[in-house]
């Protein structure tokens, strides 16, 4: 096998996959630019792992194509794809030392001894594991095993790097460190990377762009801010971040009549009569605003930097509000009024 040509663009076009009656992938199309880190975010069963397996070659799609750097790889076996992958549970070779693990992909490519030595040292230095060459995987902590898996996946200059929920087993602090480290390494090497996660916070920290998946279909592909501020539909709005989602109809320019009664002023220019969704992020509420909501506090939590309130509105609707922790925490059972400006409301 020849040496890898390095990072490249990934193009997925109309890829479908069924398992019996279950549609795992519903004609998915996606483009990941060279050097970009794209996160596929979705709940379990959304098809994100199947998509990754199709890209890695462990699953053959029923239709559609996968191209890397312009070349079709849809029916190529995994061994010929030059794709580095980090598995959920690392999948290190338990009987091989750290060094032998990292050297493995180079040996498979018949790289010379001296060159292997050099590149393994470089890769281990990059993940800050120099000096651990002779250890066995079981003698390492979870975070260190993770780094070995990462070194092994990048040592052969793969065309793509795939990461399948790699930090699931790590504790929160280590997870955050590893997230930043992966991001730094990915930028430095200019690696085209797909990162899979069900954790929306992780997706926001890491990504250039996020593709939100549900039920085998991509719901929206956009930058992190776009996904958060301007979600395309209910699912995205609900899955990413905390949200208040209402439905209604545009009753006049800049006004939406909500289905449960009442109306809100918005900045949207959707034509009158359009059925729309209205998203209000909890942290965008203040004490006053062009739109006021009054209700009974049914839950109030002190979270250090903020208060988290749940208000019962008329028409058995609820509103989630986060406010900076100042003054006294409104007690449950008391009445409260909050406001939000039209430009803080997203209409979709």
């Amino acid at each position, binding site marked *: 096998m020849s040496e890898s040509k390095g990072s490249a663009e990934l193009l997925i076009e109309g890829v479908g996959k069924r398992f019996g009656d279950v549609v795992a992938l519903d004609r998915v199309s996606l483009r990941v630019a060279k050097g970009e880190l794209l996160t596929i975010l979705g709940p379990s069963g959304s098809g994100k792992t199947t998509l990754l397996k199709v890209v890695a070659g462990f699953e053959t799609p029923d239709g559609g194509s996968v191209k890397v750097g312009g070349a079709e790889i849809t029916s190529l076996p995994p061994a010929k794809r*030059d794709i580095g992958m980090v*598995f959920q*549970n690392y999948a290190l070779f338990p009987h091989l030392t750290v060094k032998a693990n990292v050297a493995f992909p180079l040996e498979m490519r018949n790289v010379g001894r001296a060159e292997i030595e050099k590149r393994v040292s470089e890769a281990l230095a990059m993940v800050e594991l120099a000096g651990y060459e002779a250890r066995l995987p079981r003698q390492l902590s979870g975070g260190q095993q993770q780094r070995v898996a990462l070194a092994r996946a990048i040592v052969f200059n793969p065309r793509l790097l795939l990461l399948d929920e790699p930090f699931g087993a790590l504790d929160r602090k280590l997870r955050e460190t590893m997230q930043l480290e992966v991001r730094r390494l990915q930028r430095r090497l200019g690696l085209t990377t797909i990162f899979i996660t069900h954790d929306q916070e992780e997706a926001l920290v890491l990504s250039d762009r996020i593709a939100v998946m549900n039920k085998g279909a991509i719901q929206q592909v956009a930058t992190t801010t776009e996904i958060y501020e301007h979600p395309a539909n209910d699912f995205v709005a609900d899955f990413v971040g905390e949200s208040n989602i209402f439905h209604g109809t545009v009753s006049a320019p800049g006004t939406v009549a909500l289905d449960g009664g009442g109306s809100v002023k918005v900045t949207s220019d959707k034509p009158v009569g359009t059925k729309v969704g209205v998203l209000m992020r909890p942290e965008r509420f203040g004490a006053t605003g062009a739109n006021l909501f009054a209700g009974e506090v049914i839950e109030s939590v002190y979270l250090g930097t903020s208060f988290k309130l749940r208000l019962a509105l008329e028409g058995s609707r609820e509103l989630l509000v986060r406010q900076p922790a100042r003054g006294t925490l409104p007690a449950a059972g008391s009445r409260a009024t909050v406001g939000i400006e039209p430009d803080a409301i997203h209409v979709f």
Partner: protein
Amino acid sequence: MFSSRNGFWPALPALVLLFAFFLFPVVRMLGFSVEGGTFDWYAKALGQGLYIRVLWNTFEIALLVTLFCLLLGYPLGFLMATTTPGWATLGFIFVLLPLWTSVLVRTYAWMVLLGRNGVFNRLLVEYGITSDPIPMLHNFTGVLIGMVHVLLPYMVLPIYGAVRKVDPAIPAAAAGLGASSWRIFWRIWLPLTLNGVFAGCVLVFILSLGFYITPALLGGGRVIMIAVLIEQQVREALNWPFAAALSAVLLVATFLVYTIAQRFSQPEPAR
């Protein structure tokens, strides 16, 4: 030895049984072999060419049986561990059913199949593949075929267990990193299932060393393994001391094999 007092009493019946019907007879047998305070019988067993030949024969057959069981058993155990549950169940039925059938019945079945006018030879002659029947019974070949068949499950099951224990993501990772199926087998599967291979080989080899029924029937007196020799000494020659000495030799040989295998059964990591 018995660190837990509570553990001793429930085990007592089994211990008594072991002592009365295993340890005592073994010691008694060893006593036979040195009757009259002499090691003459051992000198005969280990000094005379004929008996050394038998001993060598036994080891050779045991080794070959182990080898063939491994060659047949590894692919089968591997397939059973990696196929769909339905096929795995079918595999288990085919592996276990013979194991639950009497060795005697299976050996007689082989006699019917392998004989001069047996099923195999008739087919071979009828279809003109050979002009004369191939001798497959009452010789080395027959013993080998019968023993491999009888002992195959002991190889398949440990290998199946070892393959099942490997996380399927590990060979998948190797493939993703550029390894061909061949290299995945040599670099990943084999080292990770070596414990199962060792366990299967030791089981089959040790069982082969002391095997009696199959070599006695399929060997027809012409292939003498040590267990057959011992039986002859007990039943026909009525030479109990010599039979005891031969048994002791078999016991020591078995124990040696087991000890050596134990040392190797925890393979050191590569490099």
